[in-house]
């Protein structure tokens, strides 16, 4: 396999960094990102200062505050992080078509293999991206250049919270050897525990073991561990992919709720929004999905198929309601609803089998058309369905 150059850009404590951009008073102060008020009182992210005081991700907020009393607590704002992430990617886009961001958490892999002739050596590219990000956004990201994603990630972990690291091809194993195993991505808590039982604390210890020996201790996990501790990672940088077209609408409840009327009202509002979005380019949806987030973070998706495909609010709602009924099995409050329409097609020409149905469909379409007309002229809220009030 040809030699690769992977750049890893990492904005440390991304959520905190984004918040600090918005409010400069937070700089230098310990910050904890965790949902305020009632639910999900687990730490989502924290600043370096809080980390030093012993705060960790997933810890309960109460315990975190016990360890870091003067921390500022901010609620997570995923939309804000998503926007910042998009802006971050923008600075890497000129250098490679292969850019991977797995989540909105400040990590970016850029495949700079063989781009030298265009942009110069990869470390220069990384340095330029960092500079651009710093100038535009005010972050100071850590960066590394390595032969693969795994080594690149370990390298940034090594220098966190600030700095850079370049590792050349062939240096992977020597680089990992003295490092504690927990620094290597992909090694799970169970594996770490098992390593501990065998007194294997450093990557070099584990690298001493043959594949057969590892196989005895770890079974099916041995293959990935064998490669991980040797710094072997052939996984490609997955570009920001092309996804099939969908129409999506979201509703976040101000107060988490488990009341049927409230949830269905919100769902109808979503059906209206996706309906309008579908009708604008004259599309119809062949399938409707409901994604539901409970207060405790559990998420569930259920779907319903439309026969024939439709863009009519009323029919969309009927389908969405069916999907909701399948998804909504618990009584824990619902925090967030998302309606996703896919299998988008142009409206089918087929008429309903029975004249009665056809007549009803027509009436319903006429009604929606009338609503659309009014809304175009006087705004969306000029006319509303009772249950969305």
């Amino acid at each position, binding site marked *: 396999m040809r030699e690769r150059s992977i750049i890893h850009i990492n904005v440390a404590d991304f959520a905190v960094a984004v918040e600090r951009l918005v409010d400069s008073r937070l700089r230098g102060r310990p910050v904890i990102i965790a949902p305020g008020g009632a639910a999900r009182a687990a730490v989502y992210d924290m600043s370096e200062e809080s980390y030093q005081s012993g705060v960790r991700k997933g810890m309960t907020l109460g315990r975190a505050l016990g360890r870091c009393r003067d921390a500022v607590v901010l609620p997570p704002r995923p939309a804000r992080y998503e926007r910042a992430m998009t802006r971050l990617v923008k600075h890497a886009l000129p250098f490679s078509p292969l850019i991977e961001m797995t989540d909105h958490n400040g990590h970016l892999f850029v495949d700079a293999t063989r781009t030298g002739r265009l942009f110069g050596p990869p470390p220069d590219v990384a340095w330029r991206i960092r500079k651009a990000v710093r100038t535009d956004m005010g972050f100071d990201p850590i960066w590394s250049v390595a032969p693969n994603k795994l080594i690149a990630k370990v390298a940034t972990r090594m220098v966190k919270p600030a700095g850079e690291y370049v590792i050349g091809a062939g240096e992977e194993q020597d680089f990992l050897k003295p490092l504690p195993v927990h620094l290597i991505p992909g090694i799970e808590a169970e594996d770490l525990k098992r390593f501990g039982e065998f007194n294997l604390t450093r990557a070099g210890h584990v690298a001493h073991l043959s594949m057969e020996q590892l196989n005895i201790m770890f079974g099916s996990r041995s293959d990935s561990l064998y490669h991980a501790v040797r710094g072997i990672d052939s996984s490609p940088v997955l570009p920001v992919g092309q996804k099939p077209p969908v129409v999506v609408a979201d509703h976040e409840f101000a107060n988490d709720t488990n009341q049927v009327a409230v949830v269905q009202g919100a769902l109808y509002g979503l059906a209206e929004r996706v309906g309008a979005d579908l009708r604008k380019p004259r599309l119809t949806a062949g399938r409707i999905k409901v994604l539901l987030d*409970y207060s405790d973070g559990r998420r569930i998706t259920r779907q319903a198929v439309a026969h024939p495909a439709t863009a009519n609010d009323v029919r969309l709602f009927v389908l969405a309601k069916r999907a909701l009924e399948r998804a909504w099995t618990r009584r824990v*409050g619902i925090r967030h609803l998302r309606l996703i329409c896919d299998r988008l097609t142009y409206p089918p020409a087929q008429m309903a089998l029975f004249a009665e149905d056809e007549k009803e469909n027509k009436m319903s379409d006429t009604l929606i058309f009338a609503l659309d007309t009014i809304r175009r002229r006087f705004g969306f809220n000029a006319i509303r369905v009772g249950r969305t009030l």
Partner: protein
Amino acid sequence: MIPLTVRSYYSLMWGTCSPEKICAVAKQRGYAQLALTDTDNLYGLWPFLKSCERENITPIVGAELTDPVSEYRAVCLVENAQGYANLCRLITRRHSDKGFDLKSAVPDHARGLTVLTQNPELLSEWYEAGVTTAAAVPRRPNGTAFKLRKVCKHLGVRVVATPGSFFPDPDDLKVHRMLRAIDRNTSLSRLTPKHAAPSDAWLAPAWEYAERFAVWPDAIRAGREIAERLTFTGPCSGLVLPPWGNSQGQSPKHLLRDAAYKGARKRYGDDLSETVVDRMEHELRIIEKMGFSSYFLVVQDIVSRSPRICGRGSGAASLVAYSLGITNVCPIKYNLYFERFLNPGRSDPPDMDIDFAWDERDEIIDSVLKQYNGHAGLVCNHVAFQPRMAIREVAKVLGLTDPEIGRVTQRLPWFWREVHMNDDLLSQLKQLPKLGQFDFPEPWQQIIHTARHIIGIPRHLSVHPGGMVITPDPLYTYVPMEIAPKGVPIIQWEKDGAEHRGLVKIDLLGNRSLGVIRDAIANLKDNGTDFDEDHWEPEDDAATQATVAGGNTMGCFYIESPAMRLLQKKTKMGDFEHLVIHSSIIRPAANEFIREYIRRLHGGKWEPIHPLLADVLEETYGIMVYQEDVAKTAVALAGFSHADADGLRKIMSKKDKARKLGHYKERFIAGARERGVTHEQIHAVWDMMMSFSGYSFCKPHSASYARVSFQAAYLKTHYPARFMAAVISNQGGFYSTFAYVSEARRLGVEILPPDVNKSDIRWKGRAGAMRVGWLSVKGLSTSTRTRIVAQRKTKPYHDIMDFLERVQPHDPEARSLIHAGAFDLLHPKESRASLLWELACRQKSRSARSGSGDLFNVRRVVPKPSFPPENQTERLRHEFSALGFLCDRHPMVLYADTLKKQKIVKAGDLPRFIGRHVCIAGLLITGKVVHTKHGEPMEFLTFEDETGLVETTFFPKAYGRFCAILERNRPFILYGKVEEDFGAVTMTVERVDSLPNSNKWQTRL
């Protein structure tokens, strides 16, 4: 209008109010007669009858019966005693017959009952079968009712208007719907009409029903006519004693006499003294007069099923019981009065409590139930919503998540019960220090408000721990019965209900310490030591007395708690008589009297509160100690009759005592005043009497306990390894295994690690050492434990592979065993990592076996890697997570380096620092929250380091600051002042710090 179908909260999870409240409401709404018809039960019969009497309402007894399959319903109202027995039978069948069919069951037991139903099919069927029946139209006439009326006209049956109520007021609908949502495990908005009562299902005033039924005035009239026939106002009372079946035709009286004398000769020798004979005759006379002979014989029969029991309660005052082997304390030697147990003036059934070793009890109960099949059952408990459960359930219905709910409920004090609450629950919660920082945002206010109405509502039945009733006639003719989930028959009433009906209860309870004593002695005998139990008098052993006097009684029955050990230390008294006093005086409400007692004990001057009491309280230094002191004082000071005084004593241990107690207080004050007692003296005595409310012992009971305490203390003193091994093996003591292991180490016992060739399931002791048993190795299943021991009996294990092959443990079990050190003796030179490698190889070869067929294929091919050397701390950490303690050292030793930098005083050195401020480091072992006079919470905590225990006090200020960070089994540094009180050293803590770098341990500990 007579309300003929009214449900209370005993219609579980449907009704919202107590029978008491319903009676009060009915009275207020002008009803003079009232039926209580709960669904499939008579749980609320006694509270209902009592409240009716109080409100001057004529009660109608009844119940609603449901069909489990068709969901048909019928209300059965009792006309006479036969009807009552039939109703009990029907309800019993409803709960215990698998294929219960309402339609066919009712006609079989319909005599003496009037049956109302809304179902036309049932109505015609039962009418044909000759059942006295009528059609019920609940709440208001509607479409279905009109159809029903047609059927009735056809049959010539009456239509009756009924309230069909589930709650007394319209406002209670909310509570009702909340209960339904909790029961259905759903949210309010998803509750369907089928699963909740309609909004008009409240108990309206008569005029409202008259209006609603204006079209059918005859339906109202019919209700009155039916009610006239229902003259039954409750089952008769009078004692129901267990029968004594005797095939030889001898009367119980003679049998008892023979058995008692035979037993007495065994206890006292063949030549019985005059005292014994006189006392025996006196007791036998009273027993016979009151008809209790068969009762004693039945109890003796039950007791004889186990070689080791502890009879307690007032029954321990009886020489007959002592002779029969029911109790173990000589009532003559220790001055116990028989009249406390039985006297002709007493109308309520006496209590006989018997403890069995905890692991033998279920078997004994089963054998008794089998012997008296159909005539015996256990008393039940009506388990009500307590604050924690109510808050949790309401919050769940409103959609809160578990962590959110936990943030409030986990901070509620552990034993916070309904009785501790007042009406304003929210502000009360806000005052709890652990919830001080929580501001109760919505929907918490709503949750707390609703929860307040739900607290106290019964939710389900549970089995009373051991209360057994045995009756001459089948039990279901006295009371409806059910089958508890664990398969035993239970009656539908709690112990008070059983007592109202006169059913005499025998308590068969489980006691861990009897198991401890049994095991320790068995261990001794296994070791070849001769131990004569028949002539064992531990009370007279000087060394044991010294152990008791020094409070070195961790592990000993009833005297091992920190409070009790401190009391022992302060009194420095180790004789039996004083221990009997101490076991009794150590009550939650008696703190100030305990202090005064210690002062007087050490020669402090005292005068009896009043000369009238001088004799009464002579043996307890003028302080009321025993339950009977309350009664005796009431007689001596206020001229109560013995029966009245006993009534007062009993009321104090009841839940709803406030009202009755007020009445007794007035009489007490008046009586005492007549005898010239001053106002101050009266109140001082009354306050002392009130310290007995809720929880107190009578002297015979204390003496029985003290006897077991002494047996335990004797074994601990002379055979510490065997005793501590038995304490740990029987589990469930006051302290954790960790704490007991430390105690054993302090006693000089060596803790031998578990070993595959030596350990048993239970811990075993020998002189100077005890071996860890398999039950303390975490994650080991019962079947694996048994297999280890069974396989070893054939031949010892020669290496780990041999063990794994023969025992076939699961992987986590084997790993736990390796970390616990169970193979260290077999493989002294190999590290645990290398043993784990062997295990991994075997697991691999097992999974490959199906394919290759060669067992050791993999081992031969793959060489063992050379693992990095073992780190001692890591090894101990693994050992700790496998065992919960360390065998060869105290975990605090591991912090020695960290602690060196600080000026730490060791627990063992504390007595040298009295009055000074010091700093100690230790692990939290146990603790107890109490309340100050002003209601502020504070805590007594016990910490431990490698040299000993430290009893600490956290006053409210320190408690409020540090309660949130204090966790069990975690090391802390404590700063505070060393105090001394009558020789007992404690520390008053002012500040707590976590030990640096203790996090790693903390996650595992």
